């Protein structure tokens, strides 16, 4: 059958009748989306390990991990969303919106902080659903839709906070009912071998495990790849495209809520103007981790590594006693390098 179509002189295929040979192991490993990021992470780690002696201590690693986790928790669903072919520029300020909501609901209504926490969860999921719904109904690019919600939330954060508290920050809720419990969940530390590790690090890794499982082992994960890879094809074989995207936006909302709660219970108060610019850090972490901007390709593990690289660079510059003004420059270089590596890897993976 098919072997007659192979011109003579060509190397015979491995299986009889096969036109394709099994791709070699290195190529299959390279085809994993997170490989480029892993190599990058190793390089950055060794670099700072060499130039910044304080970086070598376990305490420093815990700090790096904490820094990484606050970005990484949101970067995970942002990566899934990007695999699904969409952006969320509102994620950075949505974190603050969530923290402000929890803080102000608790303080203004003099409620147990858990009431505020749950209201904030509902608000965050609502913002995600709104983003997804607007996207599906208007057919506008997510860049525009979420840019709109980003600006709206930024304005609301400032205006509502000033209206209710007369200040740009919320009042401290540290003496309110349930604060201790909530702090234990969202912002405590766990001692491991004398090193205090923030609890968000464990949440981060736990969420990453769940995200990876969902992405690679469930029907929903299959749909994420499909809606990002070819939306029309996905629709024509019966994938609920709208539902998938709305669920992805809501998962970003959930992560924004979680990090917002971490901020609130770490510092007792929230500055209403913060969070602007963080949306790009999430997207950068996802891209460094191997997600394609065009969708359809990427991994949750990659986003973890991307966030870890981000954390290492942020803290490494401090430990190396460099001027932190250079930080954004390095971030830009890394982003470019990561994108080029991704491009190359994808060509290798799909080359015939």
């Amino acid at each position, binding site marked *: 059958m098919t072997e007659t179509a192979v011109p003579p002189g060509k190397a015979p295929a491995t299986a009889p009748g096969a036109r394709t040979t099994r*791709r070699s192991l290195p190529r299959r490993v390279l085809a994993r989306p997170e490989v480029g990021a892993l190599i990058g992470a190793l390089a950055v780690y060794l670099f700072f390990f060499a130039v910044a002696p304080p970086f070598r201590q376990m305490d420093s690693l815990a700090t790096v991990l904490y820094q990484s986790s606050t970005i990484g928790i949101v970067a995970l669903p942002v990566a899934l969303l990007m695999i699904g072919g969409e952006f969320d520029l509102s994620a950075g300020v949505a974190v603050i919106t969530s923290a402000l909501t929890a803080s102000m609901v608790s303080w203004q209504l003099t409620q147990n902080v858990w009431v505020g926490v749950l209201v904030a969860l509902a608000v965050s999921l609502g913002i995600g659903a709104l983003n997804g719904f607007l996207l599906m109904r208007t057919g506008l690019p997510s860049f525009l839709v979420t840019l709109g919600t980003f600006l709206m939330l930024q304005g609301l954060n400032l205006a509502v906070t000033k209206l209710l508290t007369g200040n740009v920050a919320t009042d401290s809720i540290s003496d309110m009912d349930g604060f201790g419990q909530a702090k234990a969940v969202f912002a405590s530390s766990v001692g491991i071998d004398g090193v205090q590790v923030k609890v968000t690090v464990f949440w981060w890794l736990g969420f990453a495990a769940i995200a990876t499982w969902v992405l690679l*082992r469930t*029907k929903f994960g*299959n749909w994420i*790849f499909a809606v990002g890879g070819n939306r029309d094809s*996905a629709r024509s074989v019966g994938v609920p495209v709208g539902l998938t995207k709305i669920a992805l936006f809501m998962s970003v909302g959930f992560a924004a809520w979680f990090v917002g709660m971490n901020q609130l219970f770490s510092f007792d108060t929230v500055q209403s103007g913060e969070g602007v610019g963080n949306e790009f850090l999430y997207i950068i972490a996802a891209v460094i981790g191997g997600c394609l901007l065009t969708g359809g390709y990427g991994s949750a593990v990659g986003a973890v590594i991307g966030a870890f690289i981000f954390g290492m660079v942020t803290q490494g510059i401090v430990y190396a006693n460099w001027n932190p003004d250079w930080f954004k420059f390095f971030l830009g270089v890394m982003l470019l390098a990561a994108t080029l590596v991704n491009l190359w890897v994808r060509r290798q993976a*799909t080359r015939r």
Partner: protein
Amino acid sequence: MSDTTPAFCAPELVGSSAAPPLVELRGVGKSYGNVRALHGVDLVVRPSTVTCVLGDNGAGKSTLIKVVSGLHQHTEGEYLIDGAPVRLNNPREALGRGIATVYQDLATVPLMPVWRNFFLGSELTRGPWPVRRLDIARMKRVCDGELRAMGIVLDDLEQPIGSLSGGQRQSVAIARAVHFGARALILDEPTAALGVKQSGVVLKYIAAARERGLGVIFITHNPHHAYMVGDHFTVLRLGTVELSAARDEIALDQLTHHMAGGAELAALKHELAQVRGVDTDELPKDPDAAPEAQAEAEAADEADGTGGPDETREEHTA
């Protein structure tokens, strides 16, 4: 027509003209406002036959597919599935009745592995809800089995489907339609964007689908491809049926002649004669005797001498 069914087919499928039609169109027409895209079209699709629908651009091929696949509704005539008149509202209903369409753009996601593409939208799962997960082993096994049944052997189902050739991708799409219960398969110009060798691959899978008992509607504008696998030929022109013939009633050169426009081609030659710079003396005298068609006809004649049109098909598709 009966002797065109390969001898190794299941006995009940031989003599397919006796089998009740899967899909039948009786005088079907379709108007878009006051544009009549299709008018008075009769078409019969039986199990284990390939019905070729040929026609130039704008002949009404696409409209015909859209009616049969449920994308549009006919405005005149009758559309019968299994002998009962139907009115399909969307492609999903058509699919539910076993009529699957493989479009040119294939509905695949290039960066996803072959097996994920195969089951996309109909994934197999196992386990209770919170931990309900993909049954990857079973999906790969089924996918491999179905592809092998179609004669496609891939030893790495994890490779992205985008890394397959156009013909292979088309074949995976056909295998998928077959697996998910298609009894009638509509192929929209599957060979149009493919090279010669790739077209051969697809034609082979069309033959394989027929051997599995499917009724195939093969839309094409290439009479050579149609003649290699077709059991019945319907040529559309300006929205009506110009020719409807079983395989044993028509030869390739006649089909080519009808496809090429027949009388229109003579008129075109006449017009060209009035354009300076075109030497009409060098053009063939008779459209039927175009060099390409001639060569094909000779090949067909040779094959006819040895063992009937079926041999021709085997020779071309093997």
